[in-house]
C-alpha cells in the first residue's frame, strides 16, 4: 500500500479532527486571556493574569493532586485486578463454556450507564441505609462512612470505577492469554517451570504490548470520570474528590460562569495530560513487539 494511498484514506479524518481541535484550542486560549464571565458579553484582555492566579490557587493545586492520585489508583487498580482475575479464570476454569459464561457476566458492569452505576453505588455506600454496611456488620466488620470520609472517599469511588473496568479488562486479557501460541508454554512445562514463573517470565511479557495499550486507554478514560465523581460525591467531602475536570465545571459553568478562569485551568490540564500520555506512549513503543 503506497504512502500516498494511506494518507488519502486517513487524511480527511485527520484534517477534520485537527480543525475541531484547533478551533476549540484557539477558543480556549482566547478566553483564558480575558476576564469573561457568562453573565457579561464583553471582557477586557488581562494577559496571563488567570495563569498567575492558578499558581496561588490552593484549590487548583489540590485538584491537580487529586487527579493524579485518581489516575494512578484507577489505572493501576484496574490493570492489577484484571490481570489477576484473567489468570485465575484461565488457570482454574478449564471448561470452555463456563469460562465464556463468566466472561459474559463480567461484561455487564461496563455496559451499564455510568450515571446509573454512580447512583446505585452511592446508595449501596449509604452509611445508614446502604447494603454495604449491612452486609459488613453481619460478618463483624465495623460500619464505615464511605463517601463521607475525607481520607477514604476517593478510594471508594475509585473502587466503583475499577469494578466496572477491571471486569471488562479481565475478559480482554483472558482472551489474549487464550490466543497465545502454545509452544512457549509447552516448553516451559517441559522445563518444569512453575505457574508463577510461567506467567511472570513468559506469558505476561508476551502480552506486554497489548497490556500497555490497555493501560493507555484506561489512562485516557480515567481522565473522563467526571460523571462518576460528580454524582457520587460532587467533589466532596470538602475537596477530597475534586478532580481538575470537576473543578473546571464548577468554576466555568455551575457557579457564576467564570469561563476565562476555567479555560486557563483546562489548558493546564491539557498540557499536563498531553505530556503524561506522550511519556506513556513512548514507553509502549519501546516495549512494542
Amino acid at each position, binding site marked *: 500500500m503506497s504512502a500516498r494511498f494511506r494518507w488519502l484514506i486517513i487524511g480527511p479524518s485527520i484534517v477534520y479532527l485537527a480543525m475541531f481541535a484547533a478551533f476549540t484550542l484557539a477558543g480556549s486560549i482566547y478566553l483564558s486571556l480575558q476576564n469573561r464571565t*457568562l453573565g457579561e458579553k464583553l471582557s477586557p484582555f488581562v494577559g496571563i493574569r488567570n495563569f498567575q492566579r492558578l499558581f496561588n490557587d490552593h484549590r487548583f493545586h489540590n485538584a491537580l493532586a487529586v487527579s493524579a492520585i485518581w489516575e494512578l489508583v484507577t489505572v493501576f487498580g484496574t490493570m492489577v485486578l484484571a490481570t489477576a482475575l484473567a489468570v485465575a479464570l484461565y488457570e482454574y476454569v478449564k471448561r470452555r463454556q463456563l469460562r465464556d459464561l463468566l466472561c459474559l457476566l463480567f461484561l455487564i458492569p461496563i455496559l451499564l450507564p455510568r450515571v446509573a452505576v454512580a447512583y446505585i453505588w452511592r446508595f449501596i455506600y*449509604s*452509611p*445508614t441505609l446502604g447494603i454495604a454496611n449491612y452486609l459488613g456488620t453481619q460478618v463483624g466488620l465495623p460500619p464505615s462512612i464511605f*463517601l463521607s470520609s*475525607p481520607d477514604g472517599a476517593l478510594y471508594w469511588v475509585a473502587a466503583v470505577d475499577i469494578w466496572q473496568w477491571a471486569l471488562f479488562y479481565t475478559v480482554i486479557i483472558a482472551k489474549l492469554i487464550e490466543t497465545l501460541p502454545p509452544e512457549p508454554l509447552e516448553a516451559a512445562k517441559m522445563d518444569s517451570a512453575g505457574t508463577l514463573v510461567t506467567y511472570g517470565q513468559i506469558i505476561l511479557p508476551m502480552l506486554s504490548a497489548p497490556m500497555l495499550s490497555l493501560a493507555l486507554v484506561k489512562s485516557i478514560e480515567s481522565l473522563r470520570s467526571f460523571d462518576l465523581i460528580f454524582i457520587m460525591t460532587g467533589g*466532596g*467531602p470538602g475537596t477530597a474528590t475534586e478532580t481538575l475536570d470537576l473543578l473546571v465545571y464548577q468554576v466555568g459553568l455551575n457557579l457564576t*460562569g467564570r469561563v476565562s478562569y476555567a479555560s486557563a485551568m483546562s489548558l493546564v490540564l491539557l498540557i499536563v495530560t498531553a505530556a503524561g500520555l506522550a511519556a506513556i506512549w513512548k514507553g509502549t513503543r519501546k516495549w512494542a513487539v
Partner: protein
Amino acid sequence: MNRTVLLAASLAFAFSAGAANAQNQCVGKVPELRVIAQASPSVLVTEANLPEFEQKWKTKVTITKFGEQERRAKARLDLSLGAGVYHVIYMEEGNLAEYVKANWLYPIKPLVPTEYDFDDYRKDMSSIATIDGVQYYAPFEGGGDILMYRKDILDAKHIKVPTTFDELEAAIKAVHDPAHGIYGWAMRGERGFGMNVWRWIPLYVMNGGKWLTDDGKPAFAGDIGVKATQQYLDLMKYTPPGGGSASWSDAVEAFRSGQVAFFIEVDVFGPWMEDPSKSNIVGKVGYAPPPAPLPSAGWAHGWAISTVAVKDNDDCLKAVAGDFVGWSTSKEMEQRRLKAGMISDIGRQSTLTSDAYKKAVNPDWLKAVLTTQPETRVLFLRRPEWPQVGDSLGLVLEQLSTGQRADVAGALKEASDQAEDALSN
C-alpha cells in the same frame, strides 16, 4: 356612575379584550414553545396536561428536564451565549439576581393574562421571586422552614416540643441514642450554596449576622460567623453516620426511615413524611414553626420567560409563553395536582387556605406552615455572585463537618477572602 369605576371597568374590558384578541390572532402562529425544567412533581403534572394547552394555541410544547445542577448550567449557557433555545425557564431564587443583572428575564406580571389572578400567588414565594419591586417568575413550589419531630420519641422521653433554639439543642441531646438506632438530628452537610449553607444561614442570621460590612466586604468570618459555625458543628455531632456530607435527600431519608428525632427542613417535605409508600413514620410526625429565634429560609421555584429566546417584538410568542406560565401555575392546575395526590407543591394562597387542601393535608403541618409563612424571607446574599460566595462557604463548612480541618476561624477567613475576590471581580 363613578368615573373611577367606569375607568377601571373600561381598562379591564380593554385588557381582556386585548387578551382575547391576542389569542385569536396568535393561534397557530407559534409552532413550538420550548421549556427547560427539572423533574419536580409539579412539572410532571404540567407535562401530563399539555395536550389541552397545545390544542388551545395549536403549539407544540417541549419540556426538557434535567437534574438540578445540569438544568442550572444549561439554562445559564443558553442565556449567556445568546442561543435562545428555551423560551420558558425553570427559575429559582439562588440565581435570580445574576439573571436579572444580565437582563435575561422579563418582568413576569405583564405577560401573565389577568384571568390567572396574579395576586393570588403566595406572598412569601412572590417576594422571593422579586428584586427591586419587580417579580420575575411565577412560583409553583417553595416555602420556608418547618420543624419536624417524632411525637412518639418525645412522648417516651417526656420532652415537650421545643419553642426556642436552646430548648431544641437540649432536646436533641436528650433523645440522641445511637446504640438504639435513634439520632437526635439530621441536617444537610454536603457542600453547596443550596446545600449545607442553606442550613447554616438561619443559625448565622439568628445570631444577628449580616452578609456585608458597611464598605461592602464579606462579614461572615467575624465572631458571629464563628459562633454560628460552632453551633452548626455541634448539631452535626447528633446526626447519623455520614451526616457531615449528607445531601438534603440523605437527611430526608434518614428522618423518614425512622432514625432521627428532630429535623428542620423546607416545609414541602412534611407531606413526604405522611406518604405510606415511602415513609416508615406515617402518623408519628409532629410539625411546628422553627424554634425562636431561628428565622425561616424562603425559597421558590417557578417559571420565567427568557428575553434571549423571546424577542420583544414577537407578540405572539410572548402571548403563548405568558399563557403557559399562567396556565401551568393556575388555581385549576393546582387542584389537578391535589387530585393527583400532590400536596407539597402549592404556589397559590387560595389553594393553601381552601377546604379541599385542608382535608388533604396533616392539619398540624398546615398550621405550622401558615404560622411560619409571615416570617419566611430571603436570608442569603441577594447578589449575582451569591452562587460562588455560597460555594466557597459551603466548601469550608463541609471540610469542618467531616473533620478535614478544625480551625473554624481560619476556614471562614478563607471563604471570606474568596467571597471578597468574587464580589470585586
